């Protein structure tokens, strides 16, 4: 205070300490951006705690890591198919003719400081990003978090998964190595199988006959600009919607459809999420430092006259590989044209597999007629039909993945590749049905178990001998919280067909779609799809204890 100046501007500051730097910066920014109200509204945003809610964070962080490492890689990568001769340090490639793209990838791997590590982080993070999205999507699916009002966000997430697949595909095709070149050839074959326009699309995409000299620069633009740009926008929209809708939560005491119980974003989740980012980065970096991925130096440059066995795409494209591998090579020839069903049918099934899971939320809400908002999650067992459908879909997907790796299954388990192919052909139709039935039974069993637990308590493991010699196990009653959690879910009734003649004797038409809807709804919620949960009366009767244990 003794150093107070006579400056007119700071006159009113006399006698007061200067505000801390952070506050002044915040003031400065608020005066220009109006962030105060935004921050006030959102900094104390509550998020519920559950490990599975962090799967989306895994995706977000690996996406950021991919962008950061990808930027580094673009500094050294030459997206060109100009031919060059390799003179770098990797001996088995010296003197080889290869494209600039391949040579610069070798250069990144062997000459650029940290290049190989960054390449491996980029690629491992991509695999983990897609795997994370898959599991995140399944978490949302099995807990019913896709229900109103979150259907659009479900679609955003689904689009991110699909775009991630294609960003990955265009990305691993860039080095122009023999493995990815085979994958691009595969894609070209699939495009060619499209009737009438296939050849035109192929010529357009590759700038002439395959492989031409255009696809690497084109894939490069798609991979670094177009698809990530769209994805970034979708990620932002996805997160804005998460904040706007608020996060869903598992049922529990004090948790309703109208509140969110958890911790505030600031400071708890800021610390947690910030720390988690570094943990994700750490795990991915550790894996990238330990394990090699896509060693293009061992794979060699692409030449259309060469091919290797074991040529598979990255895992997220594996189910399309499976579709192609198990499809019989049917074709129809007429008037000098060929319809390559062996490729066309897989090409049609490919989006169908993905769409099956994407449209499910809309089918469910239509079938069940449930248009209410849901912010409380379902435990998977309490929605047996949905859970069974999801499990069946996953099994479908994994059967196809097995098909995509049929050769490795054959060599590593000493099986016949033909037997595996036939297993996948039959399993494609049979396994999902079996899994559907089995999962629904398991869900019902778990519901029965819940009911039993509510009514009779937890098995304590204590054996008591009664005076007349009988041994009984002591059951411990559940706490009030546990009772609530186990009985909080609602058990919807199936739709009923409105009577064809109303109370005034007027006939009314019931459409075929309505009939189908009621039928499906019965399949969802009708007899044999749920175990009635314990009611308060039943609980009262049993716990009042008339000679019961």
């Amino acid at each position, binding site marked *: 205070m003794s150093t107070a100046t006579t400056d007119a501007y700071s006159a009113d500051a006399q006698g007061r300490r200067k505000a801390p730097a952070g506050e002044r910066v915040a003031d400065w920014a608020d005066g220009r951006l109006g962030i105060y109200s935004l921050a006030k509204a959102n900094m104390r945003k509550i998020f519920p*705690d559950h*490990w599975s*809610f*962090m*799967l989306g964070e*895994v995706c977000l962080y690996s996406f950021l890591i991919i962008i950061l490492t990808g930027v580094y890689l673009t500094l050294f990568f030459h997206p060109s198919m100009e031919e060059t001769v390799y003179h770098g340090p990797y*001996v*088995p*490639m010296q*003197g*080889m003719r290869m494209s600039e793209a391949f040579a610069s990838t070798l250069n990144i*791997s*062997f000459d650029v400081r940290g290049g*190989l590590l960054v390449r*491996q982080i980029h690629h*491992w993070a991509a*695999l*983990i990003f897609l*795997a*994370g999205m898959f599991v995140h999507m399944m978490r949302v699916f099995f807990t019913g978090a896709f229900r109103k009002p979150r259907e659009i966000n479900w679609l955003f997430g689904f689009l991110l998964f699909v775009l991630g697949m294609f960003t990955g595909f265009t990305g691993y095709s860039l080095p122009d190595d023999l493995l990815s070149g085979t994958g691009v050839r595969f894609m070209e074959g699939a495009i060619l199988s499209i009737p009438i326009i296939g050849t035109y699309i192929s010529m357009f995409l590759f700038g002439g006959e395959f492989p031409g000299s255009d696809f690497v620069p084109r894939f490069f633009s798609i991979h670094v600009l177009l698809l990530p740009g769209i994805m970034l926008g979708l990620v932002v929209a996805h997160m804005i919607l998460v904040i706007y809708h608020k996060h869903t939560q598992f049922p529990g005491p004090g948790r309703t459809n109208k509140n969110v119980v958890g*911790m505030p974003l600031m400071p*708890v989740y800021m610390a947690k999420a910030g*720390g*988690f980012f570094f*943990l*994700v980065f750490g*795990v*991915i970096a550790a*894996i*990238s*430092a330990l*394990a*090699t*991925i*896509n*060693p293009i130096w*061992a*794979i*060699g440059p692409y*030449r259309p*006259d*060469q091919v*290797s*066995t*074991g*040529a*598979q795409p*990255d*895992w997220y494209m*594996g189910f399309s590989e499976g579709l192609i591998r198990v499809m019989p090579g049917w074709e129809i020839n007429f008037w000098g044209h060929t319809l390559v069903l062996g490729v066309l049918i897989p090409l049609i099934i490919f989006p169908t597999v993905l769409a099956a899971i994407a449209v499910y939320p809309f089918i469910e809400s239509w079938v069940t007629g449930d248009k209410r908002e849901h912010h409380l999650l379902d435990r998977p067992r309490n929605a047996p039909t949905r859970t069974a459908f999801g499990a069946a879909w996953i099994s479908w997907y994994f059967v196809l993945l097995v098909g*995509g*790796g*049929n*050769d*490795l299954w*054959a*060599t590593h388990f*000493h099986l*016949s*590749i033909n037997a595996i192919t036939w297993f996948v052909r039959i399993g494609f139709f049979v396994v999902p049905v079996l899994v559907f039935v089995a999962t629904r039974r398991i869900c019902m069993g778990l519901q029965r178990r819940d009911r039993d637990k509510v009514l009779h308590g937890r098995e304590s493991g204590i054996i008591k001998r009664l005076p007349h010699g009988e041994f009984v196990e002591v059951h411990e009653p559940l706490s009030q919280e546990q009772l609530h959690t186990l009985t909080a879910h609602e058990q919807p009734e199936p739709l009923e067909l409105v009577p064809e003649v109303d109370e005034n004797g007027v006939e009314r038409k019931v459409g075929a779609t309505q009939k189908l809807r009621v039928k499906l709804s019965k399949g969802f919620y009708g007899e044999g799809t749920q175990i009635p949960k314990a009611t308060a009366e039943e609980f009262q009767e049993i716990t009042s204890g008339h000679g019961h244990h």
Partner: protein
Amino acid sequence: MKKLSARRRHPLAAVVVLLFALAVTGGLYAAFAPADTAKADDTAAQSLAIEEGKKLYSVGCASCHGTGGQGTTDGPSLVGVGASAVDFQVGTGRMPLQQQGAQAPKKKAIYDQAEIDQLAAYIASLGAGPSVPSKDQYSPDGADIAKGGELFRTNCAQCHNFTGKGGALSNGKFAPSLEDVNPKHIYEAMQTGPQNMPSFPDTTMSEKNKKDIIAYLDTVNSSKSQSPGGLELGGLGPVSEGLFAWIFGLGALIVVAIWVAARTAKAKKS
């Protein structure tokens, strides 16, 4: 003793007993197992090699390949396959066959090199065929590794994978892994085309090209080859990478997520 008795119901007791029993059995086996079959006499006279080979052949091979090497329904004719084929098949343990199957797998050789040479001499005497290559034919020294890689990807990778890790063929047949295969055997395999493999005689692939391929395999797929990026994961490409990403990548991250979620802040009671 009392101490031991008190701990006999310890949860790890069974494990300890099991480990002890395993160690005892293993030790006893090592002590009493019969020693390896006695080495056959190396000094069989070269002039008698064919005669000796015929004897060995009658015992070990004739049941499938016929008494004169003419072949039966169980085994192909050996007339004209040459010494090289014998050296490969018997030297890698593929012959004599253990059992009929999709393909003869590599196993421990049951004849020593002297016996193999005798067998080879006998088979070579049945009809002209490729002879066993000499060391300077198959030695990878001074060969062009890059050229070998190109040749390998053009001619071999379809079945053996990019760097010779092996691959599946139809109906349980397979192209074996070429890791650490003796250069002589690689040369002989190319020369004679064993089992499902096509043959690459010198007219198709020159001696120099074979050397290049051997040198390439020696560089990228042997115990001394380097993997600059870390663990190779079998060198099998995206399938093993995907499995690794799911189990160790996402798996580890889920473990971390569970750990982070379990450590939540305590709400302050006010």
